[in-house]
């Protein structure tokens, strides 16, 4: 009743192969993007931009990248934090060493370096599969942790690998207010999001999915496993690298290698699993869940403690957060192992039939 696509007939292949073949979807996505660009900057406060919107956007971008690799191509990776780190530090080097380079180009070049790094550490995927691969990708993580801590050239000779950037500018537009930073992240996210959506529904995306579903069968019907796996690694780590560069440049401003530790890799994988593997929309849901949950717990727990008359110490709160975070994740995996995106599609199906049960 709410959501119905009957009556929308396609008369050409072009119309049938649009990104959003259903009019309601087109409108909804257009409205969401318009609202994100126009309404949010008007109503949001500085705190909301800094603590919620900007991390959410950047994490969505990173989750999108991880989803391409894990969700679409089926190669479990625990090295996403490393790809972010490479993106961030490479962009930093381009930014600092070549000041005449435009900011956007530095970010993109950071992504390109991350893609090269991703291809290098994606090579084992040609031989090693499944959980073995997941552990093997940790090599990338620990290697990058070490590299940015010990090789001083990458960090411009700063001690302990901590670096900072300031004075972000594109064509005399300076990005120093939270709103402008938000708009920058949003624009990059929209561009890369559309790009990713188009890639996964094109020929290359189908190859990735074939490899994910059964790699031997895919090879038999003529899909080159090496090409498909390595392109997935490259595209995914490019997106993750750009997200890492944004995370460093826009969100943190000053960072050290520990900002992209193995913890970050776990979180990104959580986003993908909780959001829904193999779903672009799922990446956004997952990022929202993982970014908002700690903030919500942080606000909510002291209130709850005050309500029952218990003073919870700061360390007590952080431990309680860990407990609740862990329990929620397990609970969530039990209730809906296919993620929030699956819940969403169930909801859509229900809306399509409402008010009838079948």
């Amino acid at each position: 009743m709410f959501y119905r696509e009957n009556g929308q007939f396609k008369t050409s292949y072009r119309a049938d192969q649009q990104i959003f073949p259903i009019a309601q979807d087109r409108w909804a996505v257009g409205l969401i993007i318009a609202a994100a660009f126009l309404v949010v900057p008007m109503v949001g406060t500085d705190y909301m931009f800094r603590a919620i919107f900007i991390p959410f956007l950047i994490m969505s971008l990173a989750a999108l990248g991880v989803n391409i690799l894990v969700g679409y191509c089926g190669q479990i990776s625990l090295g996403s934090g490393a790809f972010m780190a490479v993106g961030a530090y490479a962009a930093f080097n381009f930014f600092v060493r070549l000041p005449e380079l435009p900011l956007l180009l530095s970010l993109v070049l950071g992504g390109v370096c991350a893609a090269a790094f991703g291809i290098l550490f994606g090579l084992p995927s040609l031989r090693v599969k499944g959980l073995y691969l997941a552990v093997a990708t940790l090599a990338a993580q620990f290697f990058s942790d070490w590299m940015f801590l010990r090789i001083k050239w990458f960090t411009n000779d700063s001690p302990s690998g901590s670096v900072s950037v300031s004075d972000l500018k594109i064509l005399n537009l300076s990005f120093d207010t939270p709103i402008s930073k938000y708009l920058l992240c949003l624009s990059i996210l929209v561009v890369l999001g559309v790009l990713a959506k188009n890639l996964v529904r094109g020929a290359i995306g189908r190859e990735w999915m074939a490899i994910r579903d059964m790699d031997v069968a895919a090879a038999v019907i003529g899909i080159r496993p090496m090409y498909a796996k390595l392109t997935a690694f490259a595209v995914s780590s490019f997106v993750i690298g750009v997200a890492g560069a944004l995370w460093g440049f826009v969100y943190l401003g000053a960072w050290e290698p520990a900002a992209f530790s193995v913890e970050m890799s776990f979180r990104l994988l959580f986003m993908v699993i909780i959001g829904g593997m193999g779903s672009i929309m799922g990446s956004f849901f997952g990022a929202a869940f993982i970014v908002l949950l700690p903030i919500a717990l942080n606000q909510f727990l002291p209130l709850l403690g005050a309500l029952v008359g218990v003073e919870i110490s700061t360390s007590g709160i952080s431990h309680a957060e860990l407990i609740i975070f862990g329990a929620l994740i397990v609970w969530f995996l039990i209730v809906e192992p296919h993620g929030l995106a699956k819940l969403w599609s169930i909801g859509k199906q229900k809306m399509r039939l409402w008010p009838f049960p079948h």
Partner: protein
Amino acid sequence: MAFFLETLLGGLMAGMLYSLVALGFVLIYKASGVFNFAQGAMVLFAALAMARFSEWIPLWTGIDNPVAANFLAFCVATCIMFVVAWLIERLALRYLVNQEGTTLLMATLGISYFLDGLGQTIFGSDIYKIDIGMPKEPVMAFEEMFEGGILINKEDLYAALIAAVLVTLLSLFFQKTATGRALRAVADDHQAAQSIGIPLNRIWVIVWCVAGVVALVAGMIWGSKLGVQFSLTTVALRALPVVILGGLTSVPGAIIGGLIIGVGEKLSEVFLGPYVGGGIEIWFAYVLALLFLLVRPQGLFGEKIIDRV
């Protein structure tokens, strides 16, 4: 030569400790196909329980014999690990049967967050020490063979000994007892085991209990070496290359993988480290494991992976 041997021996003993943690991974993976990322958290949890109860028991009961207090604390910690194992099976894994490997892996990551938080809430988050009377002073050996002899850490020696005993006990348990046979049957084929009347759920509880005890022993030894603190959970990350190098399904693989990684780490750190700035232990272990995987994708002793369409 003496220095080389010394490094080699140090590596072998460190490797023994890694295999102890790796054993926990292998046991659970074999029996239930779950890659248990919570092993590190279990090590921390067990070590915290052990450390705190060995502190509390003399206070509560007035036993001032350290051996008796340690023994009691060990028993209490074992019981706690049994309860934890039972709860994990009862509340989480039971509902996740037949899910994909990734989902299970993520669930154990969730469990590990939970255990980290819970352990530190109950037992506190300072640095505690476990004193099980391991001698700290190093000894010299082979003095007649090399000039100056070889320095051996006695503590490491004892730890390696304990690990060896544990491994022997485990293999006896697996090979000789009825429960052990049932465990091996489940590891071979879930459905076949179920069809001849082996209760899967009970087997899983037993496996997690055994893994809990292994975690406790590992936590005890690592804890008395490094002190019981949050960073103990990273021990699991150090043990992961051991697991994949040896093969996820092989107990001897965990031991031999541990020895290879231990030796490789120490030798690389001593002989290669100075040229590239040091601190290469962690990633070198992973790269070493990767190199082995390139030749044998299922690990040294893992079951051959056969792809069928």
